């Protein structure tokens, strides 16, 4: 296998990997805060808001991400009347689908994190005179994130691999270029490289997350 050949297949794949990584960051940046808001909505004392949030999580977690992406990219534009206004650039539509999906998972993770916090923490904060917001933001939230971090890490590793679903809605990314090369050259090598690139990305991510977990151990 010549250096030239590797160059011809790796170059587009690395470009595709940029799309993969870009999607990853967009989803993390938007779905974590959105997921947190969903957690608050689920726990809200305003019942209709809690019901809507619960129904949202139920639907989003109970249906395949692939189906959701197909609906957002191809289904919505078919709606009579409003469909033509729902045609978005494909990558943007996919981003929205991913963010909406991952927010539901993060919401459940954060909810679990909140449940893990001892009620003595709320009581201590109350007796020390802190108001609800002070105790939530300074005492409860940091502990919730610490408890949730391993699950958040796991979810973000899954996200790296889920980005390959872009393939199904025809946004050119890492896997798309690998498949193109496989079809063109009738060779298994591009698959191998694609796998290697995913592994490198998840490896780096794992190291970063482990560092973060260590820093949040509070010992």
């Amino acid at each position, binding site marked *: 296998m010549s250096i030239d050949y590797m160059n011809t297949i790796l170059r587009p794949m690395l470009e595709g990997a940029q799309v993969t990584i870009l999607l990853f960051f967009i989803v993390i940046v938007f779905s974590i805060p959105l997921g947190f808001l969903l957690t608050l909505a689920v726990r809200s004392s305003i019942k209709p808001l809690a019901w809507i949030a619960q129904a949202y999580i139920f639907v989003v977690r109970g249906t395949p991400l692939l189906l959701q992406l197909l609906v957002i990219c191809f289904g919505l534009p078919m709606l009579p009347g409003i469909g033509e206004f729902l045609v978005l650039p494909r990558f943007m539509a996919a981003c929205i689908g991913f963010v909406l999906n991952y927010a539901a998972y993060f919401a459940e993770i954060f909810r679990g994190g909140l449940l893990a916090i001892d009620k*003595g*923490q709320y*009581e*201590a904060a*109350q*007796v*020390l005179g802190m108001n609800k917001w002070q105790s939530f933001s300074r005492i409860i939230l940091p*502990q919730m994130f610490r408890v949730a971090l391993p699950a958040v890490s796991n979810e973000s590793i899954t996200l790296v691999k889920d980005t390959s679903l872009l393939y199904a809605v025809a946004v050119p990314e890492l896997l798309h270029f690998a498949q193109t090369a496989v079809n063109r050259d009738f060779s298994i090598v591009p698959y191998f490289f694609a796998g290697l690139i995913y592994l490198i990305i998840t490896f780096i991510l794992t190291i970063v997350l482990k560092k973060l977990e260590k820093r949040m151990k*509070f010992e």
Partner: protein
Amino acid sequence: MSLIEVAKLKKAYGDIDVLKQISFGVNKNDVVAMIGPSGSGKSTLLRSLVHLENIDGGSISIAGDYLVNEGIYAKPPEIKKITAKMGMVFQHFNLFPHLTVKENLEIAPKMVKKELSMVLEKRSRELLAKVGLENRASAYPAKLSGGQKQRVAIARALMMEPEILLFDEPTSALDPELTGEVLQVMKDLAEEQMTMIVVTHEMGFAKEVANKVVFMDKGEILETGKPNELFDHPKNERTKLFLQRVN
């Protein structure tokens, strides 16, 4: 005048009355030991003083202000002002695990009273020295022993400069060899004329440090008296029985 005045306090969980018409008073500089079997309502009584429990009837007044008057609570800002006069030490410490010892001490007065860091640093250093932990200021709670944690919790409560300190079984979660260091800190506070209410199973402490002992059973105060009276000449049958069992 009493610093704390409790009258006809009532609380029920469903059909179970946990507090039945409790009345008692605490004077300034009193050290009150509340003793009695588990489930007698001691902790519930203590917790209702700082509004960690809602009561169903009766009155609580702290330093002349009603926290709750014949079953009707004061308005929330008023409640906050009244409960701020009291600090509380819990059985399970309830230190904030994500903050260092120093941060545990300083966070509440910084956020609630907006005090200056300089003032707080000085006070937290002094209080940590007082409980013998001046060298652990930068440690996280996970690195402390149970006795050390409880001493930090006492210092944290003192940071808010309360007039009254409430202890809810402060040594019950500790290994026997660690109770001494916590009781010593409490003894020092009593000698400095701190007003304290201590729910405890430490009869030795109650005898030695308290000036008033309250015996509770099944949601009622059955007997109140000076330690030597109550321990050596209990009048109530159930008090006698309880003291026989713990001795």
